[in-house]
C-alpha cells in the first residue's frame, strides 16, 4: 500500500485515468446519472411511491426502498460493468504489459482504477440522496453510521466480485456479457423489480445470502432508521473475502 502511494507519477496517473473515465459519457451516465434520474422520475411519476405504505412500516417507497435500490444500482454497475471492462480492455490492449516494462508496475493502475470507481460510487450515492431530499422530500439516512458501514462493506464485496470477473474473463466482449449476466440476476435478488417484502419466503432466504440481497437490505434498512442485521453484514464480508482471494489467485497481467 505505501509502495503504491510513493509511486512516481501516481498523481498524474490518477489525473489521466480520471479524465479518461469522464470521457466515456455512457459510463458516467449509467453510474452517476441514471440512478438519480430514475429515483426522481419514478418517485415523481408513480403516485403510490409517495404514499406511506403499511408494508414498509409506514414509510413511503421514496423514503428508503427506492433510494436504497438506486444506490445499489450505482455501486453494482460500477463494480460489475465499468471496472472489470476497463481492466480487461487494459489487459487485452497490452496497456498493463507495457506498464510492466516501466518503473511503475501495473498493480498501481489497478489500484488507481479501483480508487476512481470508489470515488464515483460515493459521488453517485451522495447525488442520489441529495436530489431525493431536495425533490422528493426524502429524509437523509436515519441510521447514518449503519448506512455508511453498509455502503463501505457492500462496495468492497461488489468491487471484489468485479475484480474476480476481470481476472477470469478472457476478453472484453465476454467480460461485458458476463458482467451484465451477473448484474441483472443480482439486482433481482436485491429486490430491484420485486420488492423483497413481496417475495416468497424461499426466495427471500436465497436473497439474504446473495451479495446484493444483503447489500440492498442493509441500504433500505439503514435508510429507514434500522440497525443493519448481523447476517447481512456477515454475508457481505464473506463475499468480499472469498472474491478477493479468488481474484488475487486468478488475475493475469497479460
Amino acid at each position, binding site marked *: 500500500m505505501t509502495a503504491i502511494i510513493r509511486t*512516481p*507519477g501516481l498523481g*498524474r*496517473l490518477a489525473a*489521466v485515468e480520471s*479524465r*479518461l473515465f469522464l*470521457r*466515456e459519457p455512457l459510463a458516467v451516465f449509467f453510474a452517476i446519472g441514471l440512478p438519480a434520474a430514475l429515483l426522481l422520475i419514478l418517485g415523481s411519476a408513480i403516485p403510490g411511491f409517495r404514499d406511506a405504505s403499511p408494508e414498509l412500516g409506514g414509510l413511503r417507497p421514496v423514503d428508503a426502498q427506492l433510494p436504497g435500490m438506486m444506490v445499489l444500482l450505482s455501486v453494482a454497475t460500477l463494480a460489475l460493468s465499468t471496472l472489470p471492462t476497463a481492466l480487461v*480492455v*487494459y489487459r487485452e*490492449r*497490452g*496497456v498493463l*504489459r*507495457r506498464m*510492466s*516494462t*516501466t*518503473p*511503475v508496475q501495473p498493480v498501481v493502475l489497478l489500484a488507481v482504477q479501483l480508487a476512481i470507481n470508489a470515488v464515483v460510487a460515493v459521488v453517485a450515492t451522495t447525488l442520489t440522496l441529495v436530489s431525493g431530499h431536495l425533490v422528493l422530500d426524502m429524509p437523509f439516512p436515519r441510521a447514518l453510521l449503519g448506512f455508511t458501514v453498509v455502503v463501505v462493506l457492500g462496495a468492497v464485496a461488489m468491487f471484489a466480485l468485479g475484480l474476480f470477473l476481470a481476472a477470469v474473463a478472457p476478453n472484453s466482449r465476454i467480460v461485458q456479457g458476463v458482467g451484465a449476466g451477473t448484474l441483472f440476476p443480482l439486482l433481482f435478488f436485491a429486490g430491484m423489480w420485486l420488492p423483497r417484502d413481496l417475495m416468497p419466503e424461499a426466495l427471500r432466504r436465497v436473497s439474504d445470502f446473495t451479495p446484493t440481497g444483503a447489500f440492498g437490505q442493509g441500504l433500505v434498512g439503514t435508510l429507514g432508521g434500522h440497525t443493519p442485521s448481523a447476517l447481512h453484514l456477515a454475508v457481505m464480508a464473506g463475499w468480499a473475502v472469498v472474491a478477493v482471494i479468488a481474484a488475487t489467485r486468478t488475475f493475469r497481467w497479460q
Partner: protein
Amino acid sequence: MLVSLGQANVVGQWREVPDRGGGRYTPSGTSAAFPASFAIPTVVGMAIITVDNLHKTYGTRVAVDDVSFSVDEGEIFGIVGRNGAGKTTTVECVAGLRAPTSGTVHVDADLKEQVGVQLQDCSMPDKIRVGEALALYASFYSRPADWRGLLSEVGLDPRTAFAKLSGGQRQRLSIALALVGNPRIAILDELTTGLDPQARRDTWELIARMRDRGVTVLLVSHFMEEVERLCDRVAVISDGRVLALDTPAGLVSQVSGGQRLVFRTSASVEPLRSLPEVTGVAVDGDEVVVTGTADVLTAVVNVLPASQMSGLRMDRTTLDDAFLALTGRPAA
C-alpha cells in the same frame, strides 16, 4: 536460479545535456573523452546485453531452443527470423518480461529505468491524447527525456487522441514511449510490420537517430531491407537457434560469392544443390533462387539448359538471399 537480471556494474557515465532537459549516456567505448580517473570496469568487452544458451519452453512447446549472443554498447543489433522462430520470446526474456527455462540473460542496466521497450500488440486507451500518454510515462522515470521535444521529433500532435492515429503514427508514439525514460537500451519488436513503405522509411530514420543519441538498440524484424540498412550486427534465428551472427555484409559474403540467379522452371532443381559453385537453392513461390560464386551461371546452365528456364535474371545477392540460403525459406 540461473538467471541474473537487473543492475550490474555501470559501464560508462551520465552527463547532463541542458538543452535536452535530460541526461545523455555516453558509452565507455569513447573512453578517450573520459578523465583518466574513470575506472575501466573489469567486464570482458563492452557487452551491455549477454545471452547465454537461452532456452524457453511453454508447456511442451519449445519457443527458444538454444540462443546465445551479446550486444555491444551503442550498436544496433538485429534479430531476424520468420514468424515463430523465437525472436519475440528471446527479446521478452532480455526485457525481463519472461523468465528463461534455462540459460542466462545478463543486462548491464536497470531493466525498468534504463531499458525502453516497444512490444508487439501494445496499444493505449482510445481516448488518451498523445501528449497525455507521453507526459504520463515520462513521470514514471527518475530521469525522463523532454517529452515535448520527443513528440516533435517523431512528428506527432500532442492533442490527437490515440484512436485517431494511423498505424505509422501509433508506431511513432510507441518509439517515443520507449525513449521517454531516456533509456540506455531500446528493445523494438517488429516495429515496422504493417506499415506502408513511406511510414517504414520514416521509422528507420528515427531508429538511426537513436544510435546517434548513444542508445543501444535491439531490433527484432523480418524485413531484411530494414536490417541491412540499420543494423551493425545481425543474429539469424530459425527454430529457436542462432544460425548465423555477423554484420549484414558479413552474412551476405558468408553464404555466397555475391551472385544470385532467379528463374522459373518445371524441371527438378535438386541436381543444382550438389554443384560446388552453388551455395544455396531456395524455392520462393514459383521462382527458384540460386546463390553462388562468380561462376554460378555457367555451372547452372550446364546442368539445367537455359531452354528449360524462363524469366531468368541475375543480380548481386542481398541479405534477403543470405537469409534464404541460411534458412532454406524466405523471411516474409
